[in-house]
């Protein structure tokens, strides 16, 4: 009981109030994030509707195997994150630490593969504003496609990096034994954030990689 009192911040009445506030705060933040990505998704939608053939052709330049691998990696990381939340609520510290480490490891695998893909685009002169070269007839819209590819996946990767930072902080607190069945809000909320970032990727993968594969 004394433990939970030290966790309670002075301006809250009790723990349930503090938990409600934190959790609602994260949900509201995620609503903002949806709109933040929304501007880019809208730009994608408008331009793909304008140039469906060139977008489909440009999507062939992406490596579907690497993209699919990354999708699988992220889905697994969502599972290990869900396990972390579960173990923190059950008060199993070792299992919590292992789940967090697994999640972070999978996140790093994702970023490494993403980095490999980016490097390939640099080699193939597909980086807008840096070395973009493409068939002259469709260069403009294809550059739009790759601008959106880098914009969307770059913003997503930035969110992954921030997520890894958050998980590092959570991991340190977990190692200190800060989380108990009475107090596991930070694990739950970073889990919400992590799942959100995964869901963004679940939209990005088909929109960027798969639009020409049904033919």
């Amino acid at each position, binding site marked *: 009981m004394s433990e939970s009192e030290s966790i309670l911040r002075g301006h809250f009445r009790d723990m349930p109030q503090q938990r409600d*506030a934190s959790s609602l*705060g994260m949900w509201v933040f995620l609503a903002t994030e949806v709109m933040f990505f929304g501007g880019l998704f809208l730009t994608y939608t408008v331009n793909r509707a304008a140039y469906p053939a060139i977008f489909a052709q440009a999507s062939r330049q992406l490596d579907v195997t690497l993209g699919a691998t990354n999708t699988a990696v992220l889905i697994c990381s969502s599972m290990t994150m869900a396990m972390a939340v579960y173990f923190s609520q059950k008060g199993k510290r070792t299992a919590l630490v292992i789940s967090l480490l697994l999640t972070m490891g999978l996140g790093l695998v994702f970023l490494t593969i993403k980095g490999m893909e980016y490097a390939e685009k640099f080699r193939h002169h597909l980086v807008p504003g840096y070395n973009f070269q493409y068939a002259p007839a469709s260069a403009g819209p294809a550059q739009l496609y790759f601008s959106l590819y880098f914009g969307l996946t770059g913003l997503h990767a930035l969110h992954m990096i921030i997520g890894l930072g958050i998980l590092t902080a959570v991991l340190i607190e977990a190692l200190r034994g800060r989380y108990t069945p009475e107090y596991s809000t930070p694990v739950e909320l970073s889990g919400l954030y992590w799942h959100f970032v995964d869901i963004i990727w679940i939209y990005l993968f088909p929109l960027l990689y798969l639009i020409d594969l049904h033919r």
Partner: protein
Amino acid sequence: MSTAQTLTLPRKNYLNEGYGLKSWLLTTDHKRIALLYLVSITFFFFIGGFFAVLIRLNLLNPAGTLVSAETYNRLFTMHGITMVFFFLIPSIPAVLGNFLIPMMIGAKDLAFPRLNLLSWYIFVLGGLFTLYSQLAGGVDTGWTFYTPLSTIYSDSHVVAAALGIFITGFSSILTGLNFIVTIHTMRAPGMTWFRLPIFVWTHYATSIIFILGTPVIAVTLGMVALERVFHLGFFNPALGGDPVLFQHLFWFYSHPAVYIMILPGMGVVSEIIPTFARKRIFGYSFVAAASFGIAVIGFLVWGHHLFVSSQSAYAAMTFSFLSYLVAIPSAVKVFNWMGTLYKGSISYDTPMLYALGFIGLFVIGGLTGLFLASLGLDVHVHDTYFVIAHFHYIMVGGAVMAYLGGLHFWWPKISGRLYPEGLAKFAALVLFIGFNLTFFPQFVLGYMGMPRRYHSYPPEFQILNVMSTAGASILAVGYLLPMAYFIWSMRYGPIAASNPWPATGLEWQTSSPPPPENFEETPVVTWEAYDFNRPDIKALLAAQAAAASSQD
């Protein structure tokens, strides 16, 4: 005021809790953060005002000989950017909302006090980018950053200004997030949703726009900056992009941003009018719900900025219809304020003068908005001074009037002191006259066809332009006066009672200035909002009446 001499300032309050610079810069007290915002936005207000003065001086003369056309472009751009993003949007929410919302709902602080301080630092950081862009030579795209002017042709400091707005957006988002969570989770026992002051309702609606609109402008200006630096083609038709898409994205935020400015003002007016009519607000639930009506419909009207931008006729008709629809919740509010005044026991204290001024000017601004929402007429007055006059009636006549009215109304609570009432009434009058003299001629100018954003004009428009500039100089006096006597009153003003008007909100139940934790003990609410029949309010009203009759 014989009672004033017996009053003393509360021994321990949020102002004397600590004195060093550190006690302010590292504070997490929402009241102190509100004052940090007050100082910073006042700074930006005077910068924006400085640009306005130069604009008006240049327009004294039809040839516009004071500054070159290029300089003039930079002046109106920086006036717009500074006033919109660094004064109007944070004004009432970040200062009065920050200060009052926790007290109005009986909480010790906002839900996330450190996030609140962070949002102020983010605001300052964004402000520094904007200041840099101004000192380095300014921006000349207009505050709207239309592409491809902003992405290709402009040779001014677009990226720094866009980044400044991008960064400051996150300060708005965090403030909105904090308000929503606070209003949901931090209400005192007995403070049910329908006992909340209307001020809190309007800030909830405003916060929804902060949360859902601001990220869109952030990502849009981010794309503009990327396109400009890396020569991408999002909005460049030569590379397959679409400049009209920029206009859609920009106005998706920037039209609702108008409601960010006016909704909190409506909240302020909804507090002032019942207080000085000594009457419960008429149609409480309708006034509360109308805030959400405005916020929701306000998200669906942005296309009325694109009537002449190659938008399809069907889209234009839909946006025109939806724009008319916003008039309904706005009118609900105005008529309910009228209903509150009807048979009220009205006194004309300074805040009330501002509130009444707000109603009149907002009605003019709102009705001329209907002119602009109509497809045919808008083609005629689009991009003329008619538009300038319309939105200044909303933003200056509405939002700034409400902000100043709110500052006067809550000044005794904020500072613990009273401002000089006679001088304040005089300043309110000066402001009202100066404002109308500045902006009413612009309706006529616009209707006669004078376009906005030109540094010179045909000589037949000179008389109206001279009237407008004369009005602006009167308006400037009206702004400087309150600033002077507010600063004076912080040291020399008579000490204020905890509930000087009297008003019914919880914020008036605690001492002036409030203690750091707002209330000695958490209040328990057993009364409805604006209940002037409460025994303590009745006693204060009776004492006020007795003091008034003994003076006669």
